[in-house]
Each structure stands twice: as C-alpha cells, then as structure tokens.
C-alpha cells in the first residue's frame, strides 16, 4: 500500500510534465503508406492525371484510416487511390502494395507473386518476419521501418535518400 501511495505521489508530481499524446500505431502506419509514394521513383510512373495505386493485398488492418490518409495526398498532380484485394493476381497497376497474408507462409506467397512487377512492397513486423522492401517495426515507441534497397533496385525502383535516412536499417543496393 506504501507502494501505491508512492505511485500516486509520483503521478501527481508528474501531472504538470507534458506527455505527448500517443497516436494509434496503425493510424501512423496508415499515414506513412501513401506518403511513401513521394520518395520513390518508378520505372513507369502513373499516366498524367491517373492516381498512384496503393494496394492492400491480403488482410487489411487499417480500414477507413487508410482511405482518409490517402485522400489527403497529392503527389505531382497525382492522387493516391486505395485498392484492396485478397490475392496477388489482380495487382497489375499497383505502385505500392501493403502485403499481409493470413499466415507467414501466406505473406511470403503473396510477396513472391508480386516479384515480377515494379511494385514497392510493404510489410509489418507485427504480421510476421517476412519482409517486403519496406518493413514496419517499432523502435523506442515510434513507427520505423527497414528498407531493402537492394530488392527495390532489382525491380527498377529508386528510393530517395530522405526516406533511406529514416530507416532503422538499410540493405544497400550493390
């Protein structure tokens, strides 16, 4: 009970100290996703007036948060449109794909099925260890990511140094 009193005292003591409100983890990830398009160059960018296509392949943990985040992006005159699909065979036309299978094996399956296309693949450590070119993780309570620049280069994608600078780790292009 002494302990409880101590905790209470500490809490009161600290009440004046600012603690920044925490954003929900998934909301921050959803905010990142359309934003990535600004920092990547595709071999064939979308046609004039056509939107970037941000695809969610497999399980969608974001829901309307992602649509809201995408709708506020305008990149060199292109909007960002969100498409959702269960399988990889309808991914033609996607520039970015957030990939989350029902199981780790399923995630790998989806990633490999996207390999033949110039799509920036994004995965989340929460869903499993399988990594796309960008792999979300949490570092000291913040959303960060690993970048596989070698894999991106192999598909003809170029990731800007500004994005690479934010990565927790980069697998460099050879």
């Amino acid at each position: 009970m002494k302990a409880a009193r101590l905790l209470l005292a500490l809490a009161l003591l600290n009440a004046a100290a600012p603690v920044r409100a925490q954003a929900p983890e998934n909301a921050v990830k959803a905010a990142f996703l359309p934003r990535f398009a600004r920092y990547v160059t595709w071999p064939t960018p979308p046609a004039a007036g056509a939107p970037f296509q941000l695809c969610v392949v497999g399980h969608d943990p974001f829901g309307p948060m992602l649509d809201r985040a995408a709708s506020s992006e305008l990149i060199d005159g292109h909007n960002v449109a969100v498409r959702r699909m269960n399988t990889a065979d309808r991914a033609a036309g996607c520039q970015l794909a957030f990939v989350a299978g029902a199981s780790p094996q399923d995630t790998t399956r989806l990633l490999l099925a996207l390999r033949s296309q110039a799509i920036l693949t994004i995965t989340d450590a929460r869903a499993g260890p399988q990594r796309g070119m960008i792999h979300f993780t949490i570092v000291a309570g913040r959303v960060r990511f690993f970048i596989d620049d070698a894999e991106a280069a192999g598909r003809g994608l170029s990731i800007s140094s500004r994005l690479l600078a934010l990565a927790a780790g980069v697998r460099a292009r050879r």
Partner: protein
Amino acid sequence: MTNRRFAFLLLGSAAIAWPDARAAAQDASAPAPLPASVPALAPGGEDLSQLSIEELAQLPVRSASKREEPLSQAPTALYVITGDDIVNSAADSLPEALRLAPNLNVQQINGHEYAISARGFNSVETANKLLVLIDGRSIYSTLHSGVFWDLRTPMLEDIDQIEVISGPGGTLYGPNAVNGVINIATRDASETIGGLLRGTAGTFEQSAAARFGVALGGSGALRVYGNWFNFDDHQPAGIGPVGLRDRFHGWRAGFRSDFATERDHFTLQGDIFDNQVESLPNDGNRGQNVLGRWTRALSDNASFEVQAYYDNVDRRYLLSLDSLETVDLESQVNLHAGGHDLVLGGGLRTTRDQFINNLNAFALNPQSRRLWVYNGFIQDRFALTPTLSVIAGVKAEQTSFTGLQFLPNLRVAWHPTEQTLLWAAVSRAVRTPSRVDRQLEFRPLLTGGNFQSEKLVAFEAGYRGQPSRRTSLSVSIFYNRYDDIRTTEFQPGGGLPIQLMNGLEGHSYGVEAWSATQVTPWLRVNLGLSTLWKDFHFKPGHGDIALRDELGHDPDVQLFARAELNPIDRLRMSFSLRRIGALDDSAAEPEIGGYFEADANVNYRLTETLELYVAGNNLLHATHLESNDTSRVKLAERSVYVGARVRF
C-alpha cells in the same frame, strides 16, 4: 525428517509416479481468436496528414491493445496469450502467465515448482502428456515426460505470444502432444530494437531485467538480454514437507538475431541460465541452449524450413543430479497447389541423460543413456468447397523404447461466413515411454518392465467466431478415450518385483469456452470456462498400488473473468478473478477445496519512456493451497509488488 519423508522428497526430484513408499496443429502459424476491432481514435487532435515524414517517424505511438488478426483457420481448441496480455497482467513468471489461458490448469506447488496440464492428469508427476515448445525447442524432460518449469525463466517482455492448444496437437507438432501443446514464441529481433530496463520489488519478490536491440543492416537485427529474479520462501502448508526451504533465485541471459528478406528468414538464438533452489546448499539448475532456423521460399508455391538446436540442463535437487543433453534436427516442406496445402517433414532427436541418486536406492538402470526419437509426417489441407476444408495427416514416430507408431488425424473446417468457423476432429496420440516408465528400479522391490505407450483417441468439435462485432467467442467440446494408462503393480499372482504397467483405461470429456468483448473502447472483458469429467477403470487382471495417482488431481470446473481497462491514455489496468474447483480423486491425499483468487495490475505511463506499475497476485487470501502433493507443496501466498519499466 524421517527416511520415509526423504524418500518422498527424492521422488520429487526424480518426479516419478510413485506416490507412496508402501508400494499434439494444424496451422500453427495462424494465430488466434479474432479480437473485436478498436475504433481508431483521433490522436490527440493532431492531424497526421499535416506532419512531415520525419515528424511521423518521431511520433510516439500507442500499440493496438490486441493484434488484429484474420479469424484463425486452425480447427483446434486454440487460445492465444499475447505478449501484451502478459505485460498487462500481474504475471511475474512463465507459469503465472499461463494462468491467462482458460484451457490450462495451473497449480503452484511451491516457490519453484508448478504442475500445468490441459484436459486433466495434473500433478507434478503426472502432467506428462503436454508438449511445450519455446521458439521451436521442445522443453519437456525425457526423464518423466513432464516439464520442470524452474528451468524456464524467460524475460516476459520478450514473449510475442503463447499458443495454448488443448487436445492432441495433430500432425505438425512433435512428440508428446497428447493432451495439449504450449507453443511459446519470442519476438523477432526486428521488433525489439532499442533498450528496455525493468525492475520490480515487493513483499515477496524482486526482479531486474535489461534488454538491448540493434539493427544489423537492412535485413537483420540482434537483441541481448539479462534477467535476474528472487522469490522468497513460502510458508509450510501443514500437509507438505516440514522445514523444506523453497526460496528460488537466479539469472538468465541470452540473445536472438533474425535476418529476413522476401525469400529467406534466418534465426539464431541462445540462452544461458543459473538458478538456486534453496532446499539444500548448491541445489539449483543451470543450462545452455542454442538454436538455428532457416526458412526459404523456393517459389510462391513452395517453401522449406530446417531447424537445429542443442540444449543442455543440469538439475541438482536433494542429493540427486539429473542432467539432460538434447540435439534435435528437423525439417519440413510446404507446398501449395490447386486448393491443396501440403506439409511434409521429418525430425530426429537424440538425448543423453544421467540420473545420479545419492539419497536412496531408487535409480535408473542404466544410470546414463542415449535415446533416439525419429518421426516423419505428411498433412494435406484441401478445400472441398470454398467454405469447407478437410485436413488429413499422419505422423509416424519411433523411439528407442517403441516400434513404429502411427498417429493419424482428420479434421474438418467449415467457414459458413467470414466470422464463423465450425470444426470437428478425430485424432490418435500416444505418450511414448520415458526413462522412468521403463528403467526405474528400487532393487529388489521394483524393476524396470515393459511399459508401453499410453494411447489416446480424441473426438473434438468446436465453434470459433465473432457472434457480434464486439465479441469473439470460442467453444469446444471433447471426448477422449484413453488406453494403457500407467499403473504400479505386483507381478500377476501377487509376487515381486513391482513394475510399472499399462493397467488403466477410461475416458474423459468436457467443455472449454472463452470470449473477449470490447464493451467500450476502454473496457475489454474476457471470460473463460473449462470443465472436466473423468471415468477410468482397471483393465482385466490389473490393479494399482499407487491408487490411480496417475490420473492426477484436477478441478472439475474452472471459471475465469478478466477486465482490461484503459480509461485514459496513460493508465492501463487489468483485474482478473478465477474460481478453481475442488481437486478430484484424492483418495490417499488431503482434500483441496475449490477457491476464488484474484490478480491485478495497474500501469501508469509517467513519461514517454517510463512506466510504473503496481501488481498483486492471489489478492483474496493471505495464503491458499493449490495442490495436495504432500511431498512438495507449500502455501501459495498473496504477493504485491511495484515495478518500473523504461524503454528507450
């Protein structure tokens, strides 16, 4: 202390079923009950779309309180304890964390010993039908097929999730998955970058832990950790040993590294530990292990995995020394084509053990032995219709003590809607003989015999789904038919030597159910229930001088309720209440009545990096008894502690 009492205690160390000197998954990868989704709240009024990408990367985040998972496809009675559940509970050790699973019965025996089982047979000596894995490493002892929980003291913050399957594990899990599987997975190293410090102190216990993780290039990460703990002496129970100390303290340290790309995932990890159990000077445990695993996707329809580990443990307890060295190699291939998910694989395990008894004449003959286990398995999951799948698998297993044994299982999974899974299964499982089963001697009274595998045919059915948007629910029923359960008998006709035989058969049945309801965005309520009825009898010509102790001592009903509250951003609380029924079939032992107990944890985030918490276990009574194990039991006690955790 009388010699007889000491004999009991030694039996404790050997953990054998000799109570009186008078005489199994399917989609392991697919996690758990679907949590009701939490509506996204606007983060402190900040509009994320106005932030630069650098600002986004600096924004403190609040983790989703539960993982959002697609409805698990696994047609088994599967409960998942998440790492978040553990950190938000009062649990201060792995066995205490397992109390979160309603399909397990957890009995604290004393400061360092626990008996944990699913679907019955619980006691230290008879909880021998469970497979327990930590990151793919099997941790039940080949000495008696039980688990020495005092060898398992992981840093709880590292645990990603614990899958608890009640019922046979099916084809894909290793040996001994008869009544259940506990599959403990620690976090991938890429999820533990940065530092964490934790300290606790309380009426009964203290702990300190540190972890540090770094990224290794763009595809790898490494963490190292160290963990120290102390649990004080428990009070004598009256029915248990007098004057036996059980203070438990020690440390554990280790590392885990993971490297991953689109195609490959490589893991290398290891631990080292040393702890003391203060029954006699120098009593305690130490060990080391190292494990490597490589998973590679060969194409989008095929992958393989190979895993190898080495594990060594030494236990010193009451003048006996028990050591076990394990080398294990396993491999599997997954193929996916035309509606079929095919898994095939095999494994090879060899153990070298030694059991030295300086206390009395109980001994293993030979004192040291190498044992082998080989197995091969194949399983296919195929879709009959888009909503109906059949899983058929068979495992073949051979050990140094048995011929080739076949363990088939057949499961049906029906998804009438996205939110509903109905399943049914029939499976066969065996508990192969342990060293004690075959080679325990007390000459000339007791000699090793020809003990055969204990056998189970299990019939199960269940429902899992989301009956409403806010509630997830799982209900399963089982009917288990057992044969060749262990007995301790004189020779036919009544002469010596006494031997361990397979004289019991019978059945058990029960219901397991649990739900999680997101009542409001800040209140989640979890309820759980498990029941068990047992009916066993001797096979013709058999009896048991151990008075059917092998069947364990189980509650007929367990009820669980847990509320998780998050009323304001900084404050998280959990309160749990459990009602454990009276232990059954205590013919020769003191009666243990049913009891209510409660645990609580209140966690306050003082700054972005520092959280403080107060936690309490067994809050309703100063002391209570959870077991009637007269050779080991001490009182479970109320314990209150404060803790601080820093993440940077």
